[in-house]
């Protein structure tokens, strides 16, 4: 964007200026100037008019408008280079200190958050979302690269730290897959080639392929979730992804996490699903509003994860057979059972 100079102002019509300098409209409104965007007049002549109406000089008016534009420009276009996030413990529901006193997460880490309903999983995700500084009921602090990130709370551009995925989400826009992705890619200032890449990645997660021209509202549950994961991994620039239970309908969950982690995301996944909980190398157990215990996945548990995945495959195969009008054969449990040494 070219710098706004008095010459440009004098020669260009207001309508053209507004197209080339989108921030101008807000700046004018903030100074209390109303205008008809289709007007052929130049901004210079308009300013003269307004200034004389308010008995001020056109130059002082212009100076205020320019100052606003500079402020607005400064707000756009920053990126973040986060390396790690740390959760510093606070209190449980009764005000007692949490037993896990701090938790460090780096790029590419996957943490499962488990615990019964009401144990505080959502509260923890909310603290992270708010980048808490001890100012929430839990008293927790979220440090980004060792520092409070309270100044990032209201970032919406490339500077935004957190993306979210939850099973209650759906696409509401009356648009095709390609249209939404294009809008999203544009809003993050990314390359348009990413639209196709995202669709390809989503199709690898879901068993039922879809194309760019598919309307969002006609995607199946699995396709919707697959597209959301692929989009969050590839288009969202936020380094932290909070997941509130990915449902298991028709999506390869291991591949979904791998995709997110391959993009160096820090993934926190609140879940009741044992397979999802075990996919994470570490899991945090919540109790009574507190971070109660942190568990590293053991080799035994990793073997159980493999079993669960085999069961999951059997489940998926049965679903496939039923949907295609096939008869079911007995489940080959013998092949699943691990040999005892």
């Amino acid at each position, binding site marked *: 964007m070219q710098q706004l100079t008095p010459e440009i102002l004098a020669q260009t019509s207001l309508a053209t200026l507004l197209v080339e300098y*989108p*921030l101008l409209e*807000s700046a004018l*409104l*903030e100074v*209390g100037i*109303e205008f008809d965007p289709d007007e052929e007049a130049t901004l210079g002549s308009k300013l003269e008019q307004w200034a004389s109406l308010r008995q001020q000089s056109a130059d002082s008016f212009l100076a205020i408008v320019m100052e606003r534009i500079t*402020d*607005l420009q400064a*707000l*756009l276009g920053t990126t973040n280079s986060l390396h790690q996030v740390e959760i510093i413990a606070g209190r449980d529901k009764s005000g007692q200190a949490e037993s896990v006193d701090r938790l460090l997460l780096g790029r590419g880490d996957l943490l499962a958050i488990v615990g019964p309903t009401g144990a505080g999983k*959502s509260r923890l995700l*909310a603290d992270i*979302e*708010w980048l808490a500084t001890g*100012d*929430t*009921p839990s008293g927790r602090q979220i440090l980004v690269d060792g520092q409070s990130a309270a100044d990032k*709370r*209201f970032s*919406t*551009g490339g500077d*935004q730290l957190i*993306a*979210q*995925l*939850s099973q*209650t*989400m*759906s*696409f*509401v*826009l009356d648009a095709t897959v390609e249209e*939404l*992705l294009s*809008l*999203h890619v544009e*809003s*993050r200032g990314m390359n348009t080639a990413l639209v196709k890449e995202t669709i390809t990645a989503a199709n690898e997660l879901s068993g039922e392929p879809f194309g760019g021209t598919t309307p969002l509202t006609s995607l199946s549950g699995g396709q919707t979730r697959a597209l*959301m994961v692929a*989009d*969050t991994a590839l*288009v*969202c620039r936020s380094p932290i992804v909070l997941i509130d239970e990915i449902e298991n309908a028709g999506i390869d969950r291991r591949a979904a996490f791998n995709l997110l982690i391959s993009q160096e995301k820090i993934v926190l996944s609140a879940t009741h699903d044992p397979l999802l909980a075990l996919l994470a190398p570490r899991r945090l157990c919540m109790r009574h509003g507190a971070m109660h215990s942190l568990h590293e996945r053991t080799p035994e548990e990793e073997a159980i994860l493999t079993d669960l995945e085999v069961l999951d495959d059997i489940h998926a195969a049965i679903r496939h057979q039923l949907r295609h009008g096939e008869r079911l054969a007995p489940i080959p449990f013998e092949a699943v059972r691990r040999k005892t040494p």
Partner: protein
Amino acid sequence: MQLITVAGPPSSGKTSVLIKTFEALNAQGARAGVVKFDCLVTDDDAIYQQAGIAVKKGLSGVLCPDHYFVSNIDRVLEWSEKQDLSMTVIESAGLCNRCSPHIKGSLAVCILDNVSGLHTPKKIGPMLKLADVVVITKGDIVSQAEREVFAYRVQGVAPRARIIQVNGRSGQGSHALAQMFLQAPVMTGSLADLRLRFPMPAALCSYCLGETRVGTDYQIGQYRKLNIE
């Protein structure tokens, strides 16, 4: 006293967000109340009452809702004083999109919802453009992509505003909004010093005075005609 204006299109979740925010405010010992401005009917005062929040409602009826609102700010302040409030929130839905209830030197909040469509931010006008805080609701039911695109559009219209996502059902984000309310500027000076952030729409024509006949003969005062090529 702190005066806060909260505006947004109908059904964007203003009342739900405010009730959750008042819960957080009351928990911190604030004496906060709300004045609800609407056009024809509202049952929201009963909802506030049920939640134990001091509430006053104002219905503009036949009057221009914008003008009704601005000419009653003195009453809002009087009522707040009687109720001994430390914070008064003015909630309005009835104002037209051309208008903005925001006042210089008071916290100005605009509430929009994620499902209202991507063109909404551009259509809202000064109520959004001149807000200090934009609350976006219903983020729990749309995708991250749509949330980001919507917030991007909002920020395009209101580049200086702080955007916050609040869930009116679960209350997620309302604690944060309450913190922003608590940090709102305290009103100094008298009523005579208050200034609107944006002028009200011009309204002085025969229809303001109850004219119902449609023909051009009956149109007296301020009006403007469609341009036909």
